[in-house]
């Protein structure tokens, strides 16, 4: 509802005002809030996805490394599907296809919250990528570490949680930062499922007013956010690598 009112305010009376007053480039308070809200949507999706992606990514990665054939096959299939199809398609399946399938199956319609859809789709997708990153990081730890842990009587689980996985943290920081930056930019895909993220908000303003400056604002905000990510992840990498001299 809020979004509809907001679109009207951009395309209707306001446009008139901008041209009349001749100050296309200065943001009004409403626009400022709209951009702020769009940025929040963008951030929310990226952060939710990276958190769930990291948690489930560990599970899927351990599945890939497992000697259990079922766990191995399931993880392989998961990664194969979510890495092998476009994120946009996954978003469409969850937002458009699932309600229709549900309707066909049960005859009941249901409202699906686009934000929840975005959380789910981005998390599922990030899980696939992070699982591969985590698997590679675990495999990069010297085999002698697992042997030493086992020789000391640790179980596989203890060795993994106390010895192997903690050693992957430093190696995971850089690819994790990379993935977060990718996610942040990819959130612009949610404009296709009726969400106003940063890019869609600014694009709407740009088409409504005919000014290109909004794209610059968008670029500046994306750069600001990715810079923060880059700096924070650089710091984390240094801190986590303290034991490597």
């Amino acid at each position, binding site marked *: 509802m809020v979004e509809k009112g907001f679109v009207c305010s951009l395309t209707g009376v306001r446009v008139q005002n901008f041209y009349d007053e001749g100050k296309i480039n200065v943001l009004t308070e409403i626009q400022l809030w709209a951009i702020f809200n769009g940025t929040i949507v963008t951030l929310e999706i990226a952060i939710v996805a990276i958190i769930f992606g990291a948690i489930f990514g560990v599970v899927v990665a351990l599945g890939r490394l497992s000697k259990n054939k079922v766990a191995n096959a399931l993880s392989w299939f998961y990664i194969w599907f979510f890495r092998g199809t476009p994120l946009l398609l996954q978003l469409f399946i969850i937002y458009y296809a699932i309600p229709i399938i549900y309707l066909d199956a049960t005859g009941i319609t249901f409202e699906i919250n686009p934000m929840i859809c975005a959380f789910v789709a981005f998390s599922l997708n990030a899980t696939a990528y992070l699982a591969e990153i985590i698997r590679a990081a675990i495999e990069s730890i010297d085999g002698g570490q697992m042997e*030493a842990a086992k020789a*000391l*009587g*640790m179980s596989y689980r203890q060795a993994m949680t*106390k010895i192997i996985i903690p050693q992957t943290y430093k190696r995971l920081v850089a690819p994790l930062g990379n993935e977060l930056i990718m996610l942040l930019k990819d959130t612009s895909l949610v404009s296709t499922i009726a969400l106003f993220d940063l890019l869609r908000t600014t694009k709407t303003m740009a088409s409504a007013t005919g000014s290109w400056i909004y794209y610059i604002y968008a670029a500046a905000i994306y750069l600001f956010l990715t810079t923060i990510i880059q700096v924070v992840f650089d710091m984390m990498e240094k801190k986590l690598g*303290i*034991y*490597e001299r």
Partner: protein
Amino acid sequence: MSMVKLVNVRKSFGDLEVLKGVNLEVQQGEVVCIIGASGSGKSTMLRCLNQLERISDGEIYIEDELSDKRANNKDLMKIDAAKVQSLCTDLGMVFQNFNLFPHLTVIDNVTIAPLIVKKTDKKIAETRALDLLSMVGLSQKKDEYPSRLSGGQQQRVAIARALAMDPKIMMFDEPTSALDPELVGEVLATMRQLAEKGMTMLIVTHEIGFAREVADRVIFMDAGVICEEGTPEEVLLNPKEERTKSFLNKIL
């Protein structure tokens, strides 16, 4: 008391048979040095004992209790996993490449296994760790990370780490082979100290001088079997077997 016993142990990696029927019994307090060319199965034998590798055929006893019995790669006994684990923790192991945990400080390296495997009280584990570290001469390094230690120091920490689990038998897999020559002495001194305290030890080594000095028994392995065994004088000074003679000629 027999600490470890191998009965006709065979081990294959695919088509490659590394152990071709090894029989060995080690008594309590005995120091056994195992020599032989690389690929002769020395390390594999140690790794089979604590089940880092599973044998293909034969029986293994630890303190007179069966820990593994197999034929044609089939587990014949299905021994309870907890039982196997407790038997194997009686075997401490020191590796050629130290394999210290790089993300943990020296003291944490020593305490982690008692803490999570034996659920030892943290204070007790730390006191014990400090004792062990001072025994190997490294108590002042307790808060350093392994990357800041020399190879010799790392190996001594690794010995302390293995001892923290109160093993009844210590196995050393070429403990000085990855060390610079000037650092070998400090590790051998630590091992000598252990031997003097009566620890049962199985040592795979190329340090013939050390073997002669500390070993009660020397075993020469070749092509997956024990080729010759006896006192250091018998095996190292007056070998009977041609293969032992030619090996000793090559390395001395």
